[in-house]
């Protein structure tokens, strides 16, 4: 199995960046900054992915990517604030699913995120969420909003396991 490294993350400044052609919006909702919302987002996206025909192994990866992204938004971005929401969006196309999860936190510098694969960071308790998201989707864009907030936009292709 390939071991991805965090520096592959793309930083896209424009939050309105094109999401690609042929995509149909399926979900556009604001969720509370709670752990219940993590479950809700995972269930919502998995239902869409299942209907699109993703197999069990791919569903597991999609669910995990959504879960880790939601935890990032709720815990690290919005810090469980009742005044802040998590923006969940999803689009489907003939051959892929796109999911975007945005928070209203302060945003962060990717260059400042410690690489969880470095020897000195292996025994840290946290900091592996983005690595797992990246490992389980085919494309990941991380957008820093203006003035704040972070959005993770991920793409999963049907049949990508055999590509």
């Amino acid at each position, binding site marked *: *199995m390939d*071991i*991805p490294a965090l520096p592959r993350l793309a930083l896209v400044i424009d939050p309105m960046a094109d999401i690609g052609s042929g995509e149909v919006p399926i979900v556009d909702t604001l969720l509370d900054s709670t*752990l219940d919302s*993590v479950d809700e987002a995972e269930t919502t996206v998995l239902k869409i992915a299942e209907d699109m025909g993703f197999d069990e192994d791919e569903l*597991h990866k999609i669910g*995990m990517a959504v*879960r*880790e992204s939601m*935890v990032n938004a709720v*815990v690290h971005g919005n810090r469980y604030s009742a005044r802040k929401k998590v923006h969940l969006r999803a689009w489907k196309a003939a051959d892929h699913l796109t999911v975007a999860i945005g928070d209203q936190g302060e945003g962060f510098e990717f260059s400042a995120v410690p690489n*969880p*694969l470095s020897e000195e960071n*292996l*025994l*840290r*308790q*946290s900091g*592996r*969420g983005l*690595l*797992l998201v990246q*490992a389980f989707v085919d494309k990941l864009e991380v957008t820093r909003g203006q003035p704040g907030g972070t959005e993770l936009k991920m793409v999963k292709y049907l049949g990508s396991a055999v590509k």
Partner: protein
Amino acid sequence: MSVKLSTRQVGDVTVIDATGRITLGEGASTFRDTVRDLAAKGNKKILLNLSDVTYIDSSGIGELVSGFTTVTNHGGVLKLLGLSKRVKDLLQITKLYTVFEVFDDESGAVRSF
């Protein structure tokens, strides 16, 4: 369902049988408390049986690491038993297979301490 833990003794090895999900929230904290308690009571040889764990997220992985560090700091050893392919993949992605000793069969794991 969050994680359920039970402990048993095989010789001088303490086996923790885990069932369910080790994820952010209750599952992860239950696991943390159990390992800290065992380490504080002087259990030096701890084998964590994950055969019936269906799901681990990054918080759960963090708790495995934390448990490993806690036991090591108490002069003990924590090893893993019965990882599913998905959990093995997680350890590969996170490079933690270089940290943990992992076993597929219990008797071999117990003998290894």
